């Protein structure tokens, strides 16, 4: 989860998120280059060091057409690479369905056991000491770590969105449509997210908690919970 006053991304817990963080650094560097150039030129103009009554400027017009085109290519190439990487769904070990409701998520593990449960936010009045306000849920999504997981996301009533920032996942839950996404957690832990599409009065109060554990613990948990 994010700390108070955090500006940057949360630490990445999936390979795709690591790529996205790196791409963001690249894009921010390009933006900083352009902004510093504009600021420098603006300062010069305000100090009246640069003025011109030129009427013909073919060379500079060529420069400020070619250069932005190069900048756009520098941005587009890694962006498209990551976009296609995100669409690769390479033999997932587990398929999991997430269904958005007003105002909770329900999850179905129907690969090998008929396992499904609802996941409601724990109200602040019932929150144990040391737990995170507005982020904890009664039933977490437990998944095996370091395994490719396929998520099928939909909604029962209105638009919702299943998002977990540290995994680099945000997928809209649309009634009547199945959206697919996938991720692999690189380490064990608890990963928090929140509904990311306005869905009514309690939109801010339907969080997502993903618990990534070794396979044996995941299997024990799934046997316990389905019985």
């Amino acid at each position, binding site marked *: 989860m994010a700390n108070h006053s955090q500006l940057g991304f949360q630490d990445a817990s999936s390979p795709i998120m690591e790529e996205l*963080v790196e791409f963001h650094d690249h894009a921010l560097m390009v933006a900083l280059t352009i902004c510093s150039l504009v600021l420098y*030129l603006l300062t010069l103009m305000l100090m009246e060091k640069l003025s011109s009554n030129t009427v013909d400027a073919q060379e500079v017009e060529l420069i400020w057409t070619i250069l932005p085109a190069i900048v756009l290519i520098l941005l587009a190439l890694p962006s498209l690479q990551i976009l296609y990487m995100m669409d690769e769904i390479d033999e997932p070990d587990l398929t999991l369905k997430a269904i958005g409701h007003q105002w909770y998520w329900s999850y179905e593990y129907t690969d090998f056991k008929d396992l499904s449960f609802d996941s409601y936010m724990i109200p602040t009045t019932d929150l144990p000491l040391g737990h995170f306000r507005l982020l904890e849920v009664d039933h977490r999504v437990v998944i095996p770590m370091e395994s490719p997981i396929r998520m099928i996301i939909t909604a029962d009533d209105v638009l919702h969105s299943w998002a977990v920032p540290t995994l680099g996942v945000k997928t809209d839950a649309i009634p009547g449509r199945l959206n697919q996404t996938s991720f692999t957690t690189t380490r064990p832990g608890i990963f928090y997210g929140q509904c990311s599409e306005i869905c009514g009065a309690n939109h801010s109060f339907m969080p997502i908690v993903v618990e990534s554990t070794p396979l044996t613990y995941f299997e024990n948990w799934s046997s316990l919970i389905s019985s």
Partner: protein
Amino acid sequence: MRRLLARRMKFHLFGAFLVSLGCAAIYKFGVAEPRKRAYAEFYRNYDPMKDFEAMRRAGVFESAPPK
């Protein structure tokens, strides 16, 4: 005063590109590369089971309660 504007513009445009590329270099070597190194360092000797056991002992997992 001859060709003053042309000289000044050439100097300052060159300066502007230097400043902007300098900012990019500062960001790349001050933020981006250290971040990449930090991730590489973290995962170089990372033991997920050791990390998991430490978290389990702390009681954070629902599916893996502490013994």
